């Protein structure tokens, strides 16, 4: 066991996979020589050579397109899109090619590719460096989408993603790289090294895709969250005293319907939290799932706390960001219903 930041855990996952499996290659912009802008691939080129960890030119569609080709012919590329906001040129390749090849080829071919992307805000990135595009992937049948909330999960889920035979989008909440940020931007963040989920095994282990985790057990209300919002919800529960059961979805496709339904049936109330914009955000899907599966158990309307339906602004980061005050208000409101 070692204490790791999320960055180190992610790096360790790639390291373990590269060590065990020659088919794994890692590349992207500034990924090789420089070790990645967030340092997630630092040292991998040195350890495994330029043929296995390398820099690509700035061309996201080229990065993902070549990774698909490699994957179809038996490699296991794990590529980095420097920020999720830059993936749009690659979206065509992801949706039309990666997501469809298994179906289209009658299962002759699969795309065992992982695409890592830092996601989310809280870093003053403004409109082109803060987006949370998870719903765009979830909406495309044929892609798996993972969003870890801590180092332990990040490593286990990334190994699972790389070993998975289908294309996996691996979204890394960049505000969590160095610590469990809970939305209190005016307070220092405890480093991962002091958090129990910063305890990460050195070697190989897998956290299965499609399994949610209960971060806090509670009786009053179920909070469905992922990524940074898990920590925000924890802070909100603590500060309001509402006995919330916080479910960290971890993967949104495949989705752990069982965990969601079991919890909401127990508590009878539900608050859904994400950073992404509201309209057609993944929260809308979660709301539908809860309504379909738990309608007769609900004691109050389900509430969503999300980013506003605007581009991510440069000014007013913390007005935009759904922090503990907004989540706390929703917890109180759902208890009144």
């Amino acid at each position, binding site marked *: 066991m070692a204490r790791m930041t999320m960055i180190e855990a992610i790096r360790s996952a790639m390291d373990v996979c590269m060590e065990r499996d020659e088919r794994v290659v890692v590349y992207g912009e500034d990924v090789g020589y*420089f070790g990645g802008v967030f340092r997630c691939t630092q040292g991998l080129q040195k350890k495994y050579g330029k043929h296995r960890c390398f820099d690509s030119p700035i*061309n996201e569609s080229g990065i993902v397109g070549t990774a698909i080709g490699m994957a179809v012919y038996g490699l296991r590329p794990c590529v980095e899109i420097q920020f999720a906001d830059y993936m749009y040129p690659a979206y065509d390749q992801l949706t039309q090619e990666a997501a469809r090849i298994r179906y289209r080829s009658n299962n002759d071919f699969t795309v065992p590719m992982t695409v890592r992307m830092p996601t989310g805000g809280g870093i003053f*990135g403004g409109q082109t460096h803060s987006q949370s595009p998870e719903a765009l992937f979830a909406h495309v049948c044929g892609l798996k989408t993972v969003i870890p909330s801590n180092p332990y999960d990040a490593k286990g889920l990334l190994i699972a993603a790389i070993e998975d035979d289908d294309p996996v989008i691996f979204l890394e909440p960049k505000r969590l790289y160095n610590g469990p940020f809970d939305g209190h931007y005016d307070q220092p963040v405890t480093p991962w090294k002091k958090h129990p989920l910063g305890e990460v095994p050195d070697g190989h282990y897998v956290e299965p895709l499609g399994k949610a985790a209960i971060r806090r057990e509670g009786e009053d209300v179920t909070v469905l969250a992922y990524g940074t919002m898990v920590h925000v919800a924890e802070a909100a529960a603590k500060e309001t005293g509402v006995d919330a059961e916080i479910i960290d979805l971890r993967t949104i496709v495949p989705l752990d319907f069982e965990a969601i339904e079991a919890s909401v049936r127990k508590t009878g109330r539900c608050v859904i939290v994400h950073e992404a914009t509201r309209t057609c955000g993944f929260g809308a899907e979660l709301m539908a799932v809860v309504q379909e599966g738990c309608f007769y158990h609900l004691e109050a309307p389900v509430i969503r706390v999300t980013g506003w339906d605007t*581009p991510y*602004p440069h000014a007013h980061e913390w007005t935009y960001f759904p922090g503990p005050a907004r989540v706390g208000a929703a917890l109180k409101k759902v208890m009144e219903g």
Partner: protein
Amino acid sequence: MPDDASSKKAAQKSNLSATKDELLKYYRDMLLIRRFEERAGQLYGMGHIGGFCHLYIGQEAVVVGVEAVKQPGDQTITGYRDHGHMLACGMDPKGVMAELTGREGGYSKGKGGSMHMFSKEKEFYGGHGIVGAQVPLGAGLAFANHYREDGRVSLTYFGDGAANQGQVFEAMNMAQLWKLPVVFIIENNQYAMGTSVKRSHSDTHLYRRGAAFGIPGMEVDGMDVLAVRETAREAIAHAREGKGPYILEMKTYRYRGHSMSDPAKYRTREEVDNVREHNDPIKRCEQRIFDAGYADEAALKDIDREIREIVKEAADFALESPEPAPEELYTDVLT
């Protein structure tokens, strides 16, 4: 790759000259950018500017040289390293600085930040945070010029790293196919973040980027404002005459990190110092001024003083201007 007829390296121009007024203007314009950027860097360090902030220090001769020969109405569009372009277009330093600090007085009312500003009045079309995304837009502006037959030229700037984006090639092909009045200005400062040109380009001569489409290109000493101006003059004339696009590869250098948080491990201190010392665009302009006897050191000091005053006012404004009202976040999303 052999040079073909459509691409050429700029001949060394030894007879570059300019009038006193011209040279002093370029000096002043470059110095304004430099002092503005230095101040932005300081405000960033003091925590008044957050997020991403890409300084143009070292590259001043490129935008000043090109903008010197554009005609009224010609459009400018660039990426995220855009403060210099805005100042060279005549945008108000106050409004630019206040955008960096996220205030109501900023060009985007604080909502856009360093990378996202526009000015209809100054024909400045942004300020784009997505690498390469502005290039097809620049070709589109040129299409509109062509369609409206208004004789305008689109000046489309992008970096060496951006030159690898697929959409840049798409834009080039369309521009040549339709003979659009656009000049593609590649600011080759030799690095894209931490990735050097030689680690990311199969052909490092970026002026040949349009060879496959038959677009002429020229390599330019981008640290010499007059070399920039003369080649830009030629390229802009070519575009305006209806001969289609032109590529200028400006060989330049950025002194500062990619953005404010750049450990700069990919190059040596000596490499940077060497350019600062021997190839600085402002120093080279200064030398030309002295050689021609246009001004003495005291006169240049006066200019510097004036500019520092302008930059100080901009910084003061940027700190005094209030934050936008929260309701402002919802304006200008749609009509």
